[in-house]
């Protein structure tokens, strides 16, 4: 089969020719899924030159349509050849068939138009204007473990957090299993501190609220009132985490902000705890190479084309020394950042305004998370991996009130 595609407004018009049978079905569905990945959610299939359609071809079509429906898109087959028309009619899929182009299809290709359209779209959602931050547990590496410093938190639907903790009930148990976690809308994803172990997750359900025993936590409660959509435009093919964080800070005009990003990954850079800090009997400086037994490092830019759910906090203008739980960026001036990313298999989302809650619901219905990383910037000369970058997605964010500065950052 051959495909020729034209962008027309919100539509992608695909001229297909050839036989859609078992030998082409996989190629067909992967081509169309790639369109969807590229943000084309409204597809018109011009099928006048599709001479044959087998059951395998229909199955491929069904898969494509399913993916498109999952992102609230649309799929129509235009000017189907008589064979295709008949086959689809007889198999009960005539709802896909349209006699002609939709009315809102622009006559001209839009490909070359508006090359400098902004890669960002901003939306205002309902919700409080700013959240309050609490820092109930303030461990920093590599302080001795003391169970008195543990803080137990139950996370409800409006809670956002990141830190180090464990879901285990007894202090003893928890101390053995202190690992990184992030909380988005009460959904907890926790990475056990053992290399190779899969992240675990705990979701709030009816009366059940997940509880974490935290050694370190940055925690805020409320709704995310702003949404930033980003997707590649022109030369702009990816978005750095620091860049997004700076954008969030600029938009809120606040010195401190929290954000949730749900996006397709270009490459993540980070590390994770692989031995519970709960085992630390005394304050330590852990030198190389011993540090390799406590932290893993990704080594390369990882998880391209997968999906990330990131929760982070960023600040500009705050005194870095007074905020030990934010790390100074080496690539963005004056930026301080702390972000954890959970990695999922790729999951496309619809464009435009989208609710965080609907995204997380959909996300946790699907396959489980593959990894959880504490994101880092690697600005080593020549060998550096750079910062984590994303391709397209959504970023919900909020300003954080900083009037409690002193108590928070002690």
């Amino acid at each position, binding site marked *: 089969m051959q495909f020729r595609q034209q962008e027309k407004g919100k539509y992608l018009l695909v001229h297909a020719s050839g036989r859609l049978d078992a030998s082409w079905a996989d190629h067909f569905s992967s081509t169309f899924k790639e369109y969807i990945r590229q943000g084309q959610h409204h597809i018109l299939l011009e099928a006048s030159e599709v001479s044959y359609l087998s059951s395998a071809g229909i199955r491929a079509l069904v898969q494509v349509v399913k993916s498109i429906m999952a992102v609230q898109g649309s799929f129509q087959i235009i000017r189907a050849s008589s064979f295709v028309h008949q086959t689809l009619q007889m198999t009960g899929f005539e709802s896909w068939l349209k006699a002609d182009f939709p009315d809102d299809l622009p006559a001209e290709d839009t490909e070359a138009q508006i090359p400098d359209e902004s890669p960002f779209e901003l939306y205002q959602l309902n919700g409080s204007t700013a959240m309050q931050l609490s820092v109930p547990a303030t461990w*920093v*590496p590599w302080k001795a473990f003391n169970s008195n410093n543990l803080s137990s938190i139950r996370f409800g639907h409006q809670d956002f957090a990141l830190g180090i903790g464990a879901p285990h009930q007894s202090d003893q148990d928890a101390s053995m299993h202190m690992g990184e976690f992030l909380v988005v809308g009460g959904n907890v994803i926790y990475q056990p501190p053992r*290399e*190779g172990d899969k992240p675990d997750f705990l979701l709030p359900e009816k009366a059940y609220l997940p509880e974490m025993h935290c050694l370190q936590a940055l925690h805020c409660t409320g709704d995310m009132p702003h949404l930033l959509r980003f997707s590649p435009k022109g030369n702009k093919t990816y978005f750095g985490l620091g860049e997004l964080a700076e954008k969030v800070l600029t938009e809120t005009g606040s010195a401190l902000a929290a954000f949730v990003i749900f996006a397709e990954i270009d490459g993540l850079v980070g*590390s994770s705890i692989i031995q519970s800090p709960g085992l630390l009997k005394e304050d330590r400086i852990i*030198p*190389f*190479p011993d*540090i*390799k037994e406590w*932290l*893993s*490092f*990704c*080594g*390369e830019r990882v998880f391209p084309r997968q999906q990330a759910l990131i929760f982070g906090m960023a600040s500009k203008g705050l005194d870095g020394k007074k905020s*030990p*739980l*934010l*790390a*100074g960026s*080496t690539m963005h001036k004056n930026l301080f950042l*702390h972000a954890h990313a959970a990695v999922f298999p790729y999951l496309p989302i619809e464009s435009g305004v989208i609710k965080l809650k609907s995204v997380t619901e959909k996300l946790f219905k699907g396959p489980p998370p593959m990894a959880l990383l*504490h994101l*880092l*910037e*690697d600005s*080593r000369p020549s*060998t550096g991996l750079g910062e984590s970058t994303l391709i397209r997605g959504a970023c919900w964010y909020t300003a954080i009130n900083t009037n409690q500065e002193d108590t928070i950052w002690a």
Partner: protein
Amino acid sequence: MLNVNNLYKTFAPGTVNEVKALIDVSLHIEEGCFTAVIGTNGSGKSTLLNAIAGSFKPDHGRINLFEHNITNWPEYKRASLIGRVFQNPFAGTAAGMTISENIALAMRRGKRRPLTAAITSRIRDEIAERVKTLKMGLEDRLDNPIGTLSGGQRQALTLLMASWLRPQLLLLDEHTAALDPKTAAKVSEITKEIITREKLTAMMVTHSMQQAVDLSDRIIMMHRGRIVEDLRDEMKARVRISDLMQTFERVQKLDLFDQSVAEILEQQFV
């Protein structure tokens, strides 16, 4: 059963070619356990097996097999307890000698070799009977030089020889790696069969994750002279090939974790 304690082995120490092939390797293997050893090329798998078999003396460390401290036993003496199959199908048999002569050698592994005829008709019958269990038709070719057989046939015979007298420990070093896929599968099958039937304690180096997952009770992964992963019991039961691949990747990434990464972490990990 087998206890390996703090084993070290450095090849060509003090030269540019210095290789730390074993670094502080400790391992305890229980009786009846079939352990697969996997790892990247040059990770020290063969060195570990050779150290256990006594091909060389370790620089440091101790090896116990049952109640014996075999650390200082020469290789041939350890052979009374240990059966071996090598990666090279030619390594385990004497090419110029007949199948029955080769097997007759194995029938007295670790025992006195008297001045009586090695092959009598009784011994021949016994050999034919057990060779038949390989289902390769070799029982009709007992007087052919073993060098005229294919690699797979030789490897199957080597396996039979290594287990003829029940060894306390069977060491298999990539014994199917040099065979074509079909023969490799057949030899794997024979391996599993013999080990299960005789309830042998065995260590098998393999590059095939499939083999490791399918055949063994326990999987040990080596990297740069160390044991970096040890999957046993319920961990082994749930492990899949993709998990092993991931562990491989992870372990290899560990090499990228150098001083400069430690500096990044020191600055940024909060």
